[in-house]
């Protein structure tokens, strides 16, 4: 790998300072960024490691809101269990080794169109907390690998209101375990929300027609006859746009069934 500077701050304040430098980039679990550096698809001159900062780690359940530190690994979220659908999602990301390193902040900052956490954040109406503001999930995901984060801005935590009912169903791309199509549904104080990952060229999105249908009848049968257009769906060697559009309907039904 090419040579870079590595900063290891132990406080958020020091991390922000280090990120103020030229071409500095945060490093969390490294499960996405380190392979990217090896391929030289990114070549920051300074990496600022976040995993030594205690204030970015941990999970708190207070008054029906689950707050997860940005540098909390998937395995810890999987173990927590206070938002069962979210723990279920975290426990099925990649493999055990990836879950021991990869973090929620890294996943949401990366916003891979096939990643799992973006669907949970959008469907739960979560709030992305950074070092200088709070961003509603509805305003956070701005496109393929694009987010509302500014340069040098760090996700310090994610706040999830715990819904009454929720489930995530992922149709796995069997080699990578990423979602070929993944659907997270919730029913709660925010009404019904349906977020789809893995399918669209624009990244994670809300399927509003399904939300409306499910609002009056939260059952798989409410989705009969509904479909998303194949236009704008991802087409690659794993599946055509038409196939993915079809899967969105099927997987949404399964998610509603699983949510009960």
């Amino acid at each position, binding site marked *: *790998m*090419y*040579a*870079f*500077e*590595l900063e*290891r701050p132990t406080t958020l304040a020091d991390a922000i300072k280090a990120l103020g430098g030229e071409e500095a980039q945060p*490093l969390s679990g*490294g*499960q996405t960024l*380190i*392979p990217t550096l*090896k391929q030289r698809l990114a070549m920051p001159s300074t*990496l600022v*490691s976040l*995993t*030594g900062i205690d204030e970015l780690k941990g999970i708190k359940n207070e008054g029906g809101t689950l707050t997860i530190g940005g540098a909390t690994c998937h*395995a810890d979220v999987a173990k927590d269990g206070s938002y069962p659908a979210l723990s279920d999602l975290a426990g099925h990301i*990649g*493999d*055990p*080794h*990836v879950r*021991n*390193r990869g973090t929620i902040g890294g996943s949401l900052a990366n916003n891979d169109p096939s990643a799992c956490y973006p669907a949970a954040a959008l469907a739960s109406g979560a709030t992305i907390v950074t070092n200088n503001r709070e961003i509603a999930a509805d305003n956070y995901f701005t496109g393929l690998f694009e987010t509302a984060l500014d340069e040098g801005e760090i996700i310090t935590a994610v706040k999830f209101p715990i819904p009454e009912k929720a489930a995530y169903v992922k149709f796995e791309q069997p080699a*990578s*375990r990423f979602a070929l199509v993944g659907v997270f549904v919730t029913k709660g104080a925010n009404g019904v929300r349906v977020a789809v990952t893995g399918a669209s060229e624009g990244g994670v999105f809300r399927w509003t027609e399904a939300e409306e249908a499910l609002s009056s009848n939260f059952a798989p049968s409410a989705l009969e006859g509904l479909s998303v257009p194949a236009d704008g769906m991802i087409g690659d060697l794993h599946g055509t746009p038409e196939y993915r559009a079809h899967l969105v309907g099927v997987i949404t039904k399964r998610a509603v069934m699983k949510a009960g």
Partner: protein
Amino acid sequence: MSEITLRINGKQRRVTVEGRTLLVDLIRDQMNLTGTHVGCDTSQCGACVVKLDGDTVKSCTVLTATLPEGTEITTIEGVSTGDLHPMQEAFSKCHGLQCGFCTPGLVVTAIDIVERSPDGLSASQVRKALKGNLCRCTGYQNIVASVLEGARAMGVQVTEEKETV
């Protein structure tokens, strides 16, 4: 360059690493512990799996200098002192390997799976927990059989021999 103290296979080591030094490079090139393999170098295959403070990780995707002082690292060389570990015996007995390239990562992972399942282990649980370890030779049947055999030898009950999926 930075200095860090690690406990590698039970021995305290003070090492000097660059920011870019991958954990697997420290283990293989500086510690001369060449049992840990590099298969893909892109966090896919699990040939490089070691334990960090009790958790399995892909050592090709960890920067050594980001580890906390005193981190405990266990490589395949450290799973037993002297004789083979019962899991290594099981892989040998059940033909859980052919070329052996994936084996160090698999054995480290397999021991971890068993240690996390004191109340019993099934074939389908083993398959799920092995998602991050690829083998190009065996077709996995004998690997699953080996892990279950190793589990028995480690005193864990096998709850289901054949998979349900």
